[in-house]
């Protein structure tokens, strides 16, 4: 049992790491990875929402009529997202501002509904918790990696600390929309090279 919990947790970190292996949740991946700080903020928000919603969905999975299953899952997710939104507003306002509209949009991040539908609605609470945590952390790692690349080249900083000398000219393509697409595409390519 413990072994399975561990397995469900670990799979989110490599085997099914989003968005590389599970090509889901691309919008925030593209939008909030300009700076590492934002990416981590987004990642933490997703971890929280994903874990909580997985647990709740898993615990009520037997009471929900099938026809309104999606609506109910979305309500659960939306609730946690709003909680995160309020808490972020109250305590980390500048990250809230940077993430902007993408906080409420966590609701429609397909990872959340995808996990609720594909995993939590079929598995027990503990496994769902492990799954949510694992996938959430995996997602955060991916976001952070992408954000690190984009921030270092696009702004010449890492965690807002300059990493190049003052003569560095920022490669601002990286922090614009096209850079986000290209960068993610190339990272996906690198991941594919590792995949046998």
């Amino acid at each position, binding site marked *: 049992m413990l072994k399975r919990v561990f397995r469900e947790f670990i799979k989110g970190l490599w085997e099914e790491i989003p968005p590389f292996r599970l090509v889901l949740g691309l919008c925030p991946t593209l939008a909030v990875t300009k700076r590492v700080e934002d990416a981590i903020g987004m990642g933490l928000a997703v971890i929280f929402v994903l874990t909580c919603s997985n647990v709740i969905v898993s615990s009520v999975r037997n009471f929900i009529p099938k026809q309104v299953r*999606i*609506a109910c899952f*979305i309500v659960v997710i939306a609730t946690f997202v709003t909680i995160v939104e309020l808490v972020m507003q109250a305590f980390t306002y500048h990250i809230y501002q940077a993430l902007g509209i993408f906080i*409420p949009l966590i*609701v*429609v991040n397909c990872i959340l509904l995808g996990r609720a539908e594909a995993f939590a609605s079929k598995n027990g609470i503990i496994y769902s918790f492990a799954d949510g945590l694992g996938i959430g952390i995996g997602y955060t790692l991916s976001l952070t990696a992408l954000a690190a690349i984009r921030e270092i080249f696009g702004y010449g900083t890492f965690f807002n600390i300059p990493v190049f000398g003052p003569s560095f000219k920022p490669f601002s393509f990286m922090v*614009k929309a096209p850079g986000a697409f290209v960068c993610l*595409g190339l990272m996906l390519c690198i991941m*594919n*090279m590792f995949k046998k």
Partner: protein
Amino acid sequence: MDSYIVLIISCIFINNILLMQYLGNCPFLGVSKRMDTAFGMSMAVVFVIVMAGAVTWVVNYYILKPYDLEYLRTLSFILVIASLVQLVEMFLKKNIPALYAGLGIYLPLITTNCAVLGVCLINMKEEYDFLHTLVSSLSYSVGYGLALILFAAIRERILLARVPKPLQDTSIGLVTAGMFSLAFFGFKGMIH
């Protein structure tokens, strides 16, 4: 009148929901492999975004605002959108099966299309009146469809090209989307 024209151009090209605001990317990459599916998806998106835009405006101005409950926007909007999509699906299935056969399979995908919720939230943030909301919803969704259909055309061509193995499929799709987005940058100067 001017404000509408500016709004239309800005929503379709300059702030293209897909390429500039990064919204609705999952279905974008998923259904752009073939022209006919891309077209079907575009039609469904236009349909749903315009309806959702109108309904959420009503919810916001007649329910949330008067009671100072704007923090419930996310929750109520998504609930409304999900129900709306499901209602539309059921309605089409029963009454217009021909249309359902065309759009039906895309409708469930749209619930989780962040472009829909995104457009609704942007409309609220910009505090548009009802007519502006409709125009902006329509323009955003047309912009989405435009990008999707153009992109599908390109991807059908990519299929013919010799792409290195690891770069195939989604990967090359994203890189192409990047080039595409770069092209849309060219519209930036249209309105100051």
